[in-house]
């Protein structure tokens, strides 16, 4: 389908400021949402039983305001100019504290905040990867802004894709292909959709919940669309197709089960739509806005040999392996395994926190 070179983007040859600022705006809105939740939350019966006191004590604490200010200042600096690795990392760390506190105080992880943070992490990893490659090939990083942001964009897209691929993989690993049977999706819809909803969405949800065939078709489509998110890496048209498919999946889930995931949908649209093809024309009366899409001067990029690329890739794999080993040694998994430990079908009594 795509005749563009493998891994290319609609943004090639243009400034990626729109992506960077757009991501910052989505993350900033998430920071505000998470901070508001933690400010209103208090430790209670719904709090995570293993959560450390310092995390639970953030609920209603003035420290929330401090974290909010730090996160907003840092994400503002990240948006202001390219290559702001430290500012982005600081914003991500502050956001992580707020989201984990929110999840620890009640009901488990707030996954609707995860996608923008993940895209930010992928973006920052791209900056670091490009700098590492440049350093290995003996180039000063000051000349390589555009080259770094090419990798940052790919990092954000690949992290988003990994998110959905893993969602499909977890269904297949936990249950197998039988996940896409004719009861699983009906169970999710009936447990979530408001009773007595007479709206069009309510009628649609009622139809799917009452139709074994329709619910099975949508369950199969869920696995295909989530697993197919890896196609986003291939090229711009594939990214558009796979991204819109995942976006449509989210919209369908909202209609059926009232589960929105707005930040994930906004992040998908930001990175998957071909903005450079139509926005400059729409915005031509506003030169400052068009600057977001400016054609950049021929890019300086280091001459990276295949050997250098392999070595840096091996280093990245070693870092991932070290992270996995370290995480396994820490009680992280025991902690996160207790999120939602009281949900799902069970034969015994509900465990008390």
């Amino acid at each position, binding site marked *: 389908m795509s005749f563009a*070179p*493998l*891994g*290319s983007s609609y943004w*090639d040859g243009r400034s990626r400021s729109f992506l960077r600022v757009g991501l910052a705006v989505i993350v900033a809105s998430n920071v505000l949402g998470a901070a508001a939740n933690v400010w209103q939350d208090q430790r209670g019966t*719904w709090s995570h039983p293993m959560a450390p006191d310092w995390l639970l004590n953030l609920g209603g604490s003035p420290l929330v305001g401090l974290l909010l200010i730090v996160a907003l200042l840092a994400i503002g600096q990240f948006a202001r100019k390219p290559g702001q690795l430290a500012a982005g990392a600081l914003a*991500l760390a502050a*956001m*992580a504290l707020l989201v984990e506190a929110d999840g620890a105080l009640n*009901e488990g992880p707030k*996954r609707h*905040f*995860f996608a923008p943070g993940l895209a930010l992490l992928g973006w920052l990893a*791209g900056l670091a990867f490009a700098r590492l*490659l440049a350093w290995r090939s003996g180039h000063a990083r000051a000349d390589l802004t555009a*080259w770094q942001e*090419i*990798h940052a964009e*790919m*990092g954000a897209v*690949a*992290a988003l*894709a*990994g998110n959905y691929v*893993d*969602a499909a*993989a*977890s269904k297949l690993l*936990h*249950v197998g292909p039988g*996940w896409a049977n004719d*009861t*699983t999706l*009906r*169970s999710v*819809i009936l*447990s979530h959709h408001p*009773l*007595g909803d007479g709206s069009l969405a309510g009628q649609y949800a009622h139809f799917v919940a009452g*139709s*074994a065939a329709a619910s099975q078709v949508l369950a199969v489509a869920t696995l295909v669309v989530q697993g197919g998110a890896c196609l986003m*890496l291939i090229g711009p048209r594939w990214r558009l197709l796979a991204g819109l498919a995942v976006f449509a999946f989210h919209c369908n889930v909202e209609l059926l089960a009232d589960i929105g995931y707005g930040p994930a949908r906004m992040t998908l649209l930001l990175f998957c739509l071909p903005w450079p093809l139509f926005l400059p024309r729409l915005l031509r009366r506003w030169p400052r806005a068009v600057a977001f899409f400016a054609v950049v001067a021929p*890019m300086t*990029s280091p*001459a*990276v040999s295949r050997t250098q690329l392999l070595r840096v890739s091996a280093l*990245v*794999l070693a870092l*991932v392996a070290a*992270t996995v080993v370290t*995480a396994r040694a820490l009680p*992280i*998994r025991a902690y996160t395994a207790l*999120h939602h430990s*009281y*949900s*799902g*079908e069970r*034969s015994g*009594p509900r465990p008390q926190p």
Partner: protein
Amino acid sequence: MDSPQHSLPSRLAFGVLVLLGYVAIANTVQQLYPFSVFDMYAHQATSASRIAVRDAAGAVSEVSAWTDWRCDGPIALATAPDHADRSPYSIPYRDREAQEWLTGHVGNGAQAVEVVRHIWWLQPEAGQAEIEDRVLLHCKARRP
């Protein structure tokens, strides 16, 4: 070197590394911002349930459709023990929303209602479901 094409091998390699790295780390930590395996629906359920209200005519509606609650016992739906051997699939935060609605809308309602766990036992290969209501509380409330 001055073409975006020149960066293609490195960015594609990086994209694959990030995707694989995400899957490896997420499956290790399970749920730690911003990593998640999104396994909350990775189960095979044959039931569904909601906290709901059943009125005298037997009609079932959302707890939030009623107000001015007066109940005959403490409102602790989320931790109410299930009396049957088999527990249905439930969504804790939906249960909590129902509980918070009841505690936040106490009053002098006069209409007798039952707060129930409304359960659908789903039949494979058919669109039908067997319905069961387990009574959790006897209350009086008002439908605005």
